[in-house]
């Protein structure tokens, strides 16, 4: 069983070395979110994601960020507590609105 496991690891290592490295794949992952990749790129990407858990998670994480961010906007664009208008600017805007200077 141990020999089988080692062999599997070696095969995996050999296989991943035949494909573009993670650094190139993460760029392709990002690009795939912008346009359709070529057939060759799609195959390389699929194979890499199939054997590399890290890039697979990277891919999932980016898509989660996209899904969460876009549905966040749909429900409420940006309600998070955060910076507020300073009192001076608030007064300036009020003055402008009421026609003062």
């Amino acid at each position, binding site marked *: 069983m141990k020999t089988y496991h080692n062999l599997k690891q070696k095969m995996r290592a050999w296989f991943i070395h035949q494909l573009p490295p993670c*650094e190139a794949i993460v760029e392709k992952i990002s690009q795939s979110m912008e346009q359709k990749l070529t057939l060759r790129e799609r195959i390389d990407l699929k194979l890499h994601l199939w054997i590399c858990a890290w*890039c697979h998670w990277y891919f999932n994480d980016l898509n*989660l*960020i996209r899904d969460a961010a876009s549905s*966040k906007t749909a429900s409420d664009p*940006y309600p998070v*507590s955060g*910076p*507020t208008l300073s009192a001076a600017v*608030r007064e300036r805007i009020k003055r402008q609105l009421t026609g003062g200077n």
Partner: protein
Amino acid sequence: MSEAQVESSNPAVDCATWVDQHGDYLFRFAVFRLRDRTAAEDVVQETFLAALRSYEKFAGRGSERTWLVGILKHKIIDHFRRTSREAPLAEDAAEGPVHEEFFQRSGQWIGHWDGAHAPTDWQATPSDLIERNDFWKVFHDCLAPLPKRTASAFTLREVDGLKSEEICELLSISVNNLWVMLHRARLHLRNCLETNWFKHSAR
């Protein structure tokens, strides 16, 4: 300011209450996209002025805030157009951290993930995050170290869902430039969220 003065007699609007009710919300919305407080203050002011001028047309149809946000979006787009014309990005001068340290730089695994920076399984769904205000705070802060234009491009793409071509036109950049910026923003943000939220938070 003559225009504002003419309209200021509009009795239907209580301007001071308006600013108090919606000012901070609009400001945060603008800061998130423009990454610049002064610019955000200006667009919020322009939004209120424009809203006052067109109040008749709105006439209480729908939510006042939604209507104001609609005007603000236009003002933000105008701002991007104006500033990108004034300070165009040099061709091929993509911005943002490269984060080479995320990958092994020597040995057999050159170009593959470095163990300390390798992604992990977040085991989360969008609905786990949408209502978590503290998550969006971290999200906002994680984008802060990026160059403004890179952070804006990312927000326009992923938060507002604009198309690549629209963003290129708004920011006066080439599509290749945009892709490099988006890639760098994603690489940086994903790692930052992992470090500051997924590994830390008491979810």
